[in-house]
C-alpha cells in the first residue's frame, strides 16, 4: 500500500518501489540503480532487465534535464477534467535517463521550447496525493 497516493488518479496501490512516494514527501524525485551492473532506471524498478538482479538502490534525479517533447491536452480522460488544460512531456537527463511527467502551469505556453532546461520538483496535490512536475531550474 502507499503508491495509490501517486498522481491525480492512481491505478496501482501495491509495488515494491512504493517508497518513491515517501521520497516525494521528503522533497526528492528518485530512480533506481542496479547494484550489480550499474543500470539506471526511471521510472524506478525493483528488478534489473539488463542482468536480472533484484539488488537495487535509489538515486536522486537531479538536473536539469532537457525537454524532448510535449503536448497540451485540451480534453482529458475520466477523473482529470478539472486539471484541464495541462501539458505532459518527456525530459532527458545527461546520463540518458528520461522522465515522463507534467510541465508546471507556472511556465507559459509561449516560453516552452524543445531543448530547454527543466528540473523535476515534487508537488502536493489535493486529497493527500503527491506527484512531481517540471519547472525552470
Amino acid at each position: 500500500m502507499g503508491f495509490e497516493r501517486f498522481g491525480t488518479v492512481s491505478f496501482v496501490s501495491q509495488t515494491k518501489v512504493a517508497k518513491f512516494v515517501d521520497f516525494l514527501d521528503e522533497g526528492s524525485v528518485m530512480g533506481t540503480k542496479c547494484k550489480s551492473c550499474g543500470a539506471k532506471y526511471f521510472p524506478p524498478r525493483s528488478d534489473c532487465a539488463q542482468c536480472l538482479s533484484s539488488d537495487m538502490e535509489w538515486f536522486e534525479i537531479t538536473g536539469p534535464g532537457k525537454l524532448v517533447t510535449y503536448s497540451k491536452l485540451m480534453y482529458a480522460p475520466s477523473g482529470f477534467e478539472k486539471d484541464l488544460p495541462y501539458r505532459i512531456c518527456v525530459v532527458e537527463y545527461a546520463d540518458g535517463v528520461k522522465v515522463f511527467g507534467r510541465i508546471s502551469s507556472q511556465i507559459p505556453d509561449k516560453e516552452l521550447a524543445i531543448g530547454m532546461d527543466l528540473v523535476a520538483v515534487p508537488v502536493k496535490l489535493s486529497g493527500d496525493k503527491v506527484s512531481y512536475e517540471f519547472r525552470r531550474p
Partner: protein
Amino acid sequence: MQKVGIIGVGQSAFVRGYEGSIRELVFEGFSEAMRDAQIKPEDIQASIICSAPEYDKQRTPAGLMAEYLGLNPQPTFYIESVCSSSSMGLRVAYSMIQAGLHDVVAVIGFQKMSEISSAESQERMGRGADIMWESPFGTMMPAYYAMHARAHMNTYGTTEEDLALIRVKAASYGQINEKAVYRKGVTLEKALESDPVSTPLKVFDCCANADGSSCIIVASEEMARKLSPKPVWILGLGAASAPINMAGRTTFSGLTCAREAAKQAYAMAGVGPEDIDVAEVHDCFTIAEMMAYEDLGFAEPGKGKELIRNKETYIGGKIPVNVDGGLLSKGHPIGATGGSQIRTITLQLRSEAGPMQVDGAKIGLVHNIGGVGIYGNVTIFGRDE
C-alpha cells in the same frame, strides 16, 4: 516451405453505435468472408478471435463467437495486442498452418467501442500505456501521438498543414468507401481550423471510434489452390515490440517497432519498399501515417512530408496509401482494424477494390500498430502472376 494464402475476406460496415450485440456484429464480417471464400463453418479448422477485451462485459469472447458462428467443436482462442490484434491473429494463423496443425483458419476481429462513453473510452485507451507511471498524469492516446507530432515537427520541419493534408487525402477516399464511418470530404481549411485535442493535434488529426468486425480466412497453399480462384499469398511477416513507457523510447519522430517489423517483412518477402504497389498503414492519427511513410522506407526520415505535399500517396502517385480512407475515415474499431486493412489489400490484389482500385497492384503491404508503438506488425502480400 509451402505458401499460406488468404481465400476469403469480410468486414461489417464500421459505424457509430451499432444496434446489436457483439455476436451479431461479428456475424456480419464472418458471413461476408464465408460467402467470399464460398465455404461453410465446418470447413474452418480453427478460429482466432481478436479484440481488446476491456470494452465488453463478456469474458472470454472466443467461446461465445465460436458457438454463434457455428465453429464448434473446432479449437478457438483469443489474441490481443490492442489495435494490432487481428494482424497478430494472422501471424498466429500463418504459424499454425505452416506447422501443419490446420489447413483453414479464420481470423476474426471485432470491437464494439460504443459499449462505453467517449471519456471512458479515452481512459481505457490511456490505460493501454503504463498505468503505474504515466496514467496518473492524465494521459490519453491523442496526447501520446501529439508528443510524436511535436518531435517530428521540431526535428524535420513537418507542419500542421502537412498533417492536415493527410486527413484531406483520407477523407477523399472515405467518401467512396461504403463501409467507412466518416463519409464526408474534409478541406484543408476545415482540417486546420478544427479544435485542438492535444496540441499540435486537432479533431481532424484523430480517427473516429467505431463499432465493427472483420474476418480473414487463411489457408494452406494446397487448400488455397483448391478452394480459391484468386488466392492472395502472405509473402512476409514482421512483428516487433518497443517499451510501453515513453521514458524507455529512443526516438519520438518514428516508431521503432514499425521499423523493425518492416525490416523483417521485407527480408522474408524478398522485396523492398520500392516494390510495394499499395499500402495500408495505421493512421490512427495523421502523424502516425506520416511516421509510417518513413518507418516503412517509402520516404527517407524527414521526407514523408514531400510524399503528401506531392500527392504521391494518392492513387496514381508513387505509393498509394490508405486509399480506402484509412482509420481516419473508415473508423478504428480496435480489434477489427488489422483485418479491415488486410481485406483492403486482398481486394486490391484481386483487382476487386472498385473505385479505390490501384491498377495492376501486385504487391501490397499492411502496417498495423498496437498502442503507441508498443506492438508493430508489418505484413506483405502478393498474388499469382
